[in-house]
């Protein structure tokens, strides 16, 4: 489905996705859809902007996603709201799925998710009876150890109600960071070449080996979240990692359990950091390769709805920095694999000819139509791409049938306990973006909000801890601690605290746990146990925060001494 189609959906199930803070432009569509009478069901532990204007807000307890999803499926089936014709014709595995969701009555899910059973029923009815219905899910789904199971769970709901293969329906991942979709399309994944062609499939491997003239390994690569293990604890010498080439990523800020990440970076023999600004990872790198920023180079981005779009250069880069592709080409040539592309189009053409589903997306076509949503197989101008997948229920599986997949819910790994009585979840905050490498240096955004950032706590918990708005507090978990500013808000329920991972001082990733989803290897950012402590000496805390911020900015070579004005 396409982003513009959001407006025309009759019903939107927004699961674990805070549009207003992560993608204001997408949120515009949701608001406009609401004005056009779209029903909104919002599942989020917090009262997000979408929840605020939703018809039904399923304010579930963190870590109970699958229980809720299964319960909705249970209600849809029990109340006969499923599209049985679509199920027969376009899906299989429905009966095993039914056995799984059998005991997920709304009452059972209510206990786990703290959402009243009646509300779950209303939500399921609303989703099933307003077609076309669209599902948007974000990091609230993906950053759990049961991430893949919940995505499949949501897909089950869409399948049960025939919400596939048409406009303004289906299920849409909204992606966390910019061009995540493009990176995956281009094969920056441990298990696939460009165009999602699997590394373990001999045919694909031979095609790429022939095209690139080098033998390619037939095993899946190492995901970023396994790198610390492969540096620090890997027993087999052959598997241990000695060099780490990082570009456009700041693991020392955005990966969980930062203490372990820093240790890994320091132990690793050779670390290269290629980025447009200095950042926390840069502090541990042996070599810094300054690359051009988004306005200084050109290329192709892919939007969350699979739309290739051209990015063009606006400003000539100053200082000795090059576009990313030129740096990689030079390094590859130096390492004995000559790459002498003249421009990005040459690279793009080589790539789309190797990927059947991208072949038709030439530069010319993208510039003409503004955006081409793959798959676009034919180079002729008529093939404008595919706005939505699985048209008329034809799925990409061999027998074109979608597979139902039901599993049982299980709680997150690290639940609250005696020593760490509250749950912590990472969230987004409008005003700054990602790891603040860019927005951290934009003055008006820094005026709006600056270090050490906020920790959102319910007013009841603030009263118990005797902390006021704006007071600096200490947040601790088994992995470490950080200092942040208390923000009492009725938008969160007691017992849960929420922090944004963009803050360098109030960096919540000092606390998060590196427990991964077995398939997607995404860490369980959205749930770990933590504790909030009052700091008695506020003067010391304020000075300490300012000094830490100055030190970091000085080490990074940004104007030294110009500390943050919090």
């Amino acid at each position, binding site marked *: 489905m396409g982003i513009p189609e959001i407006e025309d959906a009759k019903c939107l199930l927004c699961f674990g996705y805070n549009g207003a803070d992560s993608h204001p*432009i997408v949120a515009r569509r949701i608001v406009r859809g609401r004005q056009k009478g779209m029903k909104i069901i919002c599942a989020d532990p917090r009262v997000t902007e979408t929840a605020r204007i939703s018809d039904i807000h399923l304010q579930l307890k963190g870590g109970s996603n699958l229980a809720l999803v299964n319960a909705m499926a249970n209600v849809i089936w029990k109340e006969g709201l499923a599209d049985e014709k679509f199920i027969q014709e376009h899906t299989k595995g429905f009966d095993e799925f039914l056995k799984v969701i059998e005991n997920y009555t709304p009452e059972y899910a209510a206990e786990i998710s703290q959402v009243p059973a009646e509300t779950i029923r209303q939500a399921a009815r609303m989703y099933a009876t307003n077609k076309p219905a669209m599902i948007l899910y974000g990091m609230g789904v993906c950053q759990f150890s049961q991430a893949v199971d919940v995505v499949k769970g949501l897909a089950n709901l869409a399948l049960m109600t025939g919400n596939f293969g048409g406009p303004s329906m289906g299920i849409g991942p909204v992606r966390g960071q910019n061009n995540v979709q493009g990176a995956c399309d281009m094969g920056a994944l441990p298990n696939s070449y460009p165009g999602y062609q699997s590394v373990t499939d001999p045919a694909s491997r031979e095609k790429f080996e022939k095209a690139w003239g080098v033998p390619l390994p037939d095993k899946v690569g190492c995901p970023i979240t396994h790198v610390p293990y492969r540096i620090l604890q890997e027993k087999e010498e052959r598997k241990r990692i000695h060099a780490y080439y990082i570009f456009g990523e700041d693991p020392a800020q955005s990966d969980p359990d930062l203490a372990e990440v820093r240790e890994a970076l320091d132990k690793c023999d050779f670390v290269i950091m290629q980025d447009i600004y200095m950042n926390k990872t840069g502090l541990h790198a042996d070599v810094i390769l300054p690359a051009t920023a988004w306005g200084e180079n050109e290329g192709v981005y892919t939007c969350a709805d699979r739309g290739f779009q051209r990015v063009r250069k606006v400003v000539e880069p100053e200082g000795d920095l090059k576009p990313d592709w030129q740096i990689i080409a030079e390094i590859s040539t130096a390492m004995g694999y000559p790459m002498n592309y003249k421009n990005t189009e040459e690279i793009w053409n080589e790539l789309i000819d190797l990927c059947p589903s991208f072949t038709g997306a030439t530069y010319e076509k993208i510039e003409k139509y503004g955006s081409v949503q793959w798959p676009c197989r034919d180079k002729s101008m008529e093939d404008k791409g595919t706005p939505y997948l699985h048209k008329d229920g034809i799925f990409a599986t061999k027998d074109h049938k979608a597979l139902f997949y039901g599993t049982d819910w299980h709680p997150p790994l690290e639940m609250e306990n005696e020593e760490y009585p509250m749950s912590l979840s990472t969230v987004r905050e409008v*005003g700054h973006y990602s790891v603040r490498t860019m927005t951290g240096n934009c003055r008006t955004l820094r005026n709006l909000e600056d270090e050490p950032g906020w920790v959102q706590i319910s007013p009841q918990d603030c009263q118990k801890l005797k902390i006021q708005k704006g007071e600096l507090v200490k947040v601790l978990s088994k992995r470490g601690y950080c200092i942040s500013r208390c923000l009492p808000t009725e938008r969160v329920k007691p017992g849960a605290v929420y922090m944004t991972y963009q803050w360098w001082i109030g960096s919540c990733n000092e606390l998060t746990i590196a427990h991964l989803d077995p398939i997607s290897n995404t860490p369980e950012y959205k749930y770990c146990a933590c504790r909030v402590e009052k700091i008695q000496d506020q003067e010391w805390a304020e000075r300490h925060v300012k000094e830490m911020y100055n030190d970091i900015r000085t080490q990074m070579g940004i104007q030294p001494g110009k500390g943050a004005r919090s």
Partner: protein
Amino acid sequence: MNYFVKGNPDLCIGCRTCMIGCVVVHEGKHIFEIDPDSYTFHPKLHMVKTARLSVPVQCKHCENPACMAACGVNAIYQEDHRVLIHTETCIGCKACMDACPFGAIDMVTVAGVRQKDGSEKKVANKCDLCQGVAGGPACVRVCPTQALTLVTEEELEDLAKRKRMESARSTFCEVYHCDEFSYGGRE
């Protein structure tokens, strides 16, 4: 009658672009070249987020403003459909701040100006409907979801008229089941 900007909580997504737009317009484009410490970030509207809503709140440019009455030094005056504060005259006595029932006025530092004892000079700050800015209020223009609208006298007038018509029509037709307006025609 004075104009004012009104926020619609149903459209507002709490992104605060309006606050940044307000500062940039009042500070001027050079804001991005000058030394970050040489300007002051004082938006003239403030985002309010509660459990139920997000919407910015700013001065309503009242017709007989409580702030103007409370001002000890006559620094507040009405001109060009708006209520304005003459910041050179203002002594920061906060009477207006206490008088305003909407909390639309706050006290802000004046960049680089110190009092005799070294403490920063602070004066009253509130929405001036972007006086002298082409295109009118910046917050209205920059809002990504058009949640802010400038309400002028005329609009207010015909809003009231429209509501009167609507209630008259619905009472006449739906309550008394007459089919069309007959201007006092029959019983």
